[in-house]
């Protein structure tokens, strides 16, 4: 399959707008040119016509003795007619169909004019082209009326020069309109297509588990797309939650028979004195414990995934929550003679988040700290606010540090442990499923927080779980 370049809406839009403005500019040019031509021709025709009429009116009938006519051509009229663009002037006077004066070869109009209303026509004459006004009237000659035809022609070189100048100006106007339109179409294409970019950004900015429907303001034209996308998100969420529910139910269903199995194995252990059988039973109990633990972690994991998708945030006082969790963990820690040393601030440190997610994360961290510490050691639990990183950019954070004096990370890269079912090489005989830190990392991501595991100075491990403080 050949890779086709994707079609660009912007390019198409710009090309179409440019084509449209080119057509418009051409139309403007033509309109200016034609109307200017017509206007100047009408003006000049009016002057020419008036001159021809006044010429005809100045003609007087001949004397009684012969059929002649008195012509008094006015130099002023000729001067004025010729003034604009230094035109050339030709005339012809016909009386009774006979040329009495002027240029006998000046062509007659195709149709004779009406009385005293000049008729205009353009005609080639000698080496040039003339605009001619023809006027007709009657004269009394030798006692009877005779038709008089006066033709007055002028070249229109000046008008042509003016029309050319106007055409140039019109072309300039067209060009200006076109360039303005070009700039405008680029801007328009940009602003028209911006909502698409905004939408894409809104979708792209979402966290991997954010399956809420899109609620951004999108233009009406994009709403079918948004609706379709939301429908798709809804279906995806449905499928995911089905899977998660299934895992949670499956884990739950496995836990019950496992606990029955454990009880039975314990009873059997108590009742048997055959050493090999007892050892086998002890191994069975251990495997059952590990299975139960895995089922619990799977359940937790599914819960975290589900709640992360739900994004049900509420206001939470972080201090009391941490204090309660620590208290709940004391008995387990005490079983291994481990002391929990919480150090909490006086204020409650309110944040927005999901208590279930936070509890799951902290429970796992405390569990790891206790699990991977030797007996008779202490674990520090510190809650503190953290100024925005980089001096101002970003939000201030509430940070919970859980630091133990355990076996440490054995030089392994901490981010590897957040992968599902991945356990470190340092675990030894400590039971576990490898889901704990996955849960923590997902909880942190769902609330816009941060999780980090690092070696502690002086031995041990320090886990950091931070959540953004509001405003």
């Amino acid at each position: 399959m050949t890779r086709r370049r994707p079609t660009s809406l912007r390019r198409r839009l710009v090309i179409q707008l440019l084509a449209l403005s080119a057509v418009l500019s051409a139309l403007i040019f033509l309109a200016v040119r034609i109307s200017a031509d017509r206007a100047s021709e009408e003006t000049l025709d009016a002057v020419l016509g008036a001159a021809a009429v006044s010429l005809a009116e100045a003609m007087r009938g001949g004397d009684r003795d012969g059929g002649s006519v008195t012509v008094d051509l006015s130099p002023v009229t000729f001067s004025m007619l010729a003034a604009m663009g230094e035109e050339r002037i030709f005339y012809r006077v016909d009386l009774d169909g006979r040329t009495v004066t002027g240029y006998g070869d000046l062509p007659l109009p195709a149709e004779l004019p009406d009385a005293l209303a000049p008729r205009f026509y353009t005609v080639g004459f000698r080496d040039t082209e003339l605009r001619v006004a023809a006027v007709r009237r009657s004269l009394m000659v030798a006692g009877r009326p005779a038709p008089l035809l006066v033709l007055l022609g002028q070249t229109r070189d000046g008008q042509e020069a003016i029309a050319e100048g106007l055409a140039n100006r019109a072309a300039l106007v067209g060009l200006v309109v076109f360039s303005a339109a070009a700039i405008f179409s680029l801007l328009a294409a940009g602003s028209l297509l911006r909502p698409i970019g905004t939408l894409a950004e809104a979708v792209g900015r979402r966290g991997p588990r954010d399956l809420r429907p899109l609620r951004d303001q999108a233009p009406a034209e994009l709403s079918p797309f948004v609706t379709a996308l939301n429908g798709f998100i809804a279906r995806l969420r449905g499928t995911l939650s089905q899977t998660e529910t299934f895992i949670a139910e499956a884990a739950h269903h496995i836990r019950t028979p496992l606990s029955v199995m454990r009880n039975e194995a314990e009873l059997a252990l108590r009742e048997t004195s055959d050493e090999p059988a007892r050892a086998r039973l002890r191994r069975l109990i251990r495997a059952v414990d590990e299975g139960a633990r895995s089922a619990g972690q799977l359940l937790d994991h599914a819960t975290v995934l589900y709640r992360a998708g739900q994004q049900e945030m509420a206001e939470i006082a972080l201090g009391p929550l941490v204090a309660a969790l620590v208290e709940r963990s004391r008995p387990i820690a005490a079983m291994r003679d481990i002391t929990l040393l919480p150090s909490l601030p006086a204020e409650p440190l309110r944040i927005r988040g999901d208590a279930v997610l936070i509890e799951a994360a902290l429970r796992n961290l405390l569990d790891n700290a206790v699990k991977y510490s030797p007996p008779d050691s202490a674990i520090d639990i510190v809650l503190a606010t953290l100024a925005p990183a980089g001096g101002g950019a970003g939000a201030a954070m509430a940070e919970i540090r859980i630091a133990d004096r355990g076996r440490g990370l054995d030089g392994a890269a901490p981010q590897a442990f957040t992968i599902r079912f991945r356990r470190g090489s340092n675990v030894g005989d400590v039971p576990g499923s490898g889901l704990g830190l996955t849960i923590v990392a997902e909880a942190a991501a769902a609330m816009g927080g941060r999780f980090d595991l690092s070696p502690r100075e002086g031995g041990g491990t320090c886990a950091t779980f931070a959540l953004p403080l509001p405003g």
Partner: protein
Amino acid sequence: MRNIRAALAGLILALAGPVMPARGYEIEASAHFGPPDAARRLAVLSTTDIDFLRPVIEGWLARTPGIGLDYTLASSQEVYRAIAEEGAVFDVVISSAMDLQMKLANDGFARPLPAEMLRTRPDWSRWRNLLVAVAQEPVTMILSDHALDGGLPMPHTRRDLIALLRDHPDRFRGRVGTYDPEVSGAGYLFAAQEARLSDTFWRLAEVMGRLDARLFCCSGDMIAAVRQGDLLIAYNVLGSYAAADGRTAPGFVVVEPEDFTLTLLRTALVPRGAADPTTAEAFVAFLLSPGGQQLISAAAGLPAIDAGAFALKPYLRPIRLDPGLLAPLDRISRQGFLAEWRAAMDQP
């Protein structure tokens, strides 16, 4: 212009026959300049006397060696006929008959001149790119030294002149002269232009008619008559002729009327049928160049084209070089005008 012929008849060496039937138009004289065997010869047809332009022509030939120039002198009417009707081949046409030159240009017999030649010309001294003035000549009146004997006031305007003539009919009867517009093209041009500019023209015509004014064909004859004492006042005389003549034999004063003094433009054009238009344009360009203008005014005695003159003498009016000149040329208009003129002249 037959005045030139009369004044210079003795000087002209190569006098052509009065009528050359094969030619179809009459010439008065011709002269040949430059090397006789020159490969390129420029044919100039003109109404201006050969001796007037001789220094200018020789100045040009000195600058452009290897070119000859054939100069043909004819009356303005014949110059027009040669180009418009007979299809004679000339490279440059120079004439003082502005109206006929305008008609040649208007009717399409002139060839466009290059734009750079005309760019520096004042607007009133050219028409389109076809016709360009090479000299400007005021139309004046001349008074014999004896005209005002007895302390009569010097007339500075037409009104003054009318008053002078009217108050002293006995002195001036039969001793006032002007052009005969029926015979002279220049006379008709001046009369028509004056009539166009002012009504005093007809009043003056009537006064002159009552005094039995004598009518002349040419400026030269009028100047001669004044010098001989036959005339006391000659009206509408080309100032350049008066000045040229006055240098040898004073005996009269030249007065430029201060109400307005018509200024005739001597114009040049290159006909469409010119055999060598490039050289023709070079010649016209020389006539318009500072060097050529200098020669025209200093050696030929024709006033050069000078827009400054109009600022200095505000009453100078160049005759408008535009198609307005065509109206009086109309046959019937001319008949009408001359009929009026005759009526003014023939008074009991």
